[in-house]
């Protein structure tokens, strides 16, 4: 179940939990596809923490 080891309030006995778990898993799946779609664009550009000073040097 989603994050049960980390104490979020998803309870297995709660009938809502199964549906919530299913929906959260779907969001995770959609997010994985979202991040994957950004790989090429991200890798084609400068590292995130590039210093402006680097360009000047």
């Amino acid at each position, binding site marked *: 179940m*989603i*994050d049960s080891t*980390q*104490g*979020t*309030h*998803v309870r297995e006995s709660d009938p*809502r939990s199964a*549906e*919530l778990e299913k*929906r*959260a*898993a*779907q*969001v*995770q799946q959609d*997010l*994985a596809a*979202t*991040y994957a*779609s*950004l*790989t090429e*664009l*991200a*890798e*084609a*550009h*400068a*590292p*995130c923490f590039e210093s402006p000073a680097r360009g000047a040097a």
Partner: protein
Amino acid sequence: MESNHLSVHEAARALRDGKLSVPDLLASCLDRLDRTENDVNAWAHVADRSMLAEKANRLQAALSRSGDPGVLYGMPFGVKDLVDTADLPTEAGSEVFRGRRPAQDAECVRSSLDHGGLLLGKTRTHEFAYGVRTPGVANPWELSRTAGGSSGGSAAAVAAGSCMWAIGTDTLGSVRMPASLCGVVGLKPTAGAIPEQGVIPLAWSLDAVGVLTRTCEDAASTFAALRRSTLPALARTPRRLRVGVARADGLGRVQDGVLAVVDHAARTLAESYDVTDVDIPLLEHHVPVGFGLLVPEASSWHEPLLRNPAPDLPPYEQGIHASLLAGLQVRAVDYLRAARARRAVVAAFAELFERIDVLLTPTTPYVAPVASEPAVQWPDGTAEPFETSMCRFTACANVTGLPAVSVPAGLAGGLPVGVQLIGRAHSELDILQVGSRIEMRLSPPIGGVRDDGPSFR
């Protein structure tokens, strides 16, 4: 025209000239609220009426001593229920925050009150602003349709005439989208231009406080009143602006009526500005970058509530709860992948704005959808989720931090269509100046006070 349908500037002039009083303006807004609220449902909380009347009388008495008190003076305004107010609950549209009473006003509310504004009440929002169709809020133009979101209550209240202007927040388009669907002006300023202190965040790196008004002139004045005083003074650019119009064939699926309004706006602007066709850079990546940042950032803020809920804590709405839980699982490298892609979008827009001063796009790909529809249905038989399609053209301004405004520019099928103008950082006056050339004052068709018809200003 009733005084609640004047622009802020028109009402301010009438107050100054003694043709209108603050108590009469308040009464007009409250009367309009009483006549529309059962249908529109824009307000989460309305201030105590005797206290409002007392404040209005006090402001009126001081008016004669104030000289020129500014355009916000005596104006009844609404505040999105995501923004803290000391005198009214701030529940973020959520059972989780039911009954929450902040100790003090958000800085933007404080600024509005310091300028003599009358806080009429709190406007409805999607729960924690996590959505694009504010539940329960009807579009004043056609009650079966959504007002959009997540500042749906603010947009519907301004459109219905129950307040003179309103504060909203915008994370991927939450001021501009409802403004477009409800036929009002919605300004999302440059990131950080209006202080966010006292505003419950959705996604800190994308959020902006914005304003919803009836005219671009009103948006300029309300923005000026709310902005950080440390920013450079607002000034109009005297030179002839270069306007880039987003090529229609690069926009993806957009309703024909929306494209026609954008085309008409472009032709209007060509009479005053240098207009060229441009492509929106990296358009297909704006929404993925936006959600790639938004989801984990939202979960980060909600983490304490998710991990340690009070025993009697009411639940989040299930769809939002699911998204918040999913966001807790996002890997740091994936969040950073979105951050790196964001840099690419920022760089591409910087390059574009070397060639143009203002970018014209549709605000949303479609007019206000019927509220009960689960997804937008395109003529080719495909369906697209509202959450990822409605913000297709607005997300870029949050990803880049650039200012953007949605301006009502026409009708399609009898419903309002907004066009979006995006500018360089801190060029709010430029985009509002361009917007004022194409804005169309629209009136809501409910309650029997519709004007004879829309007219160009």
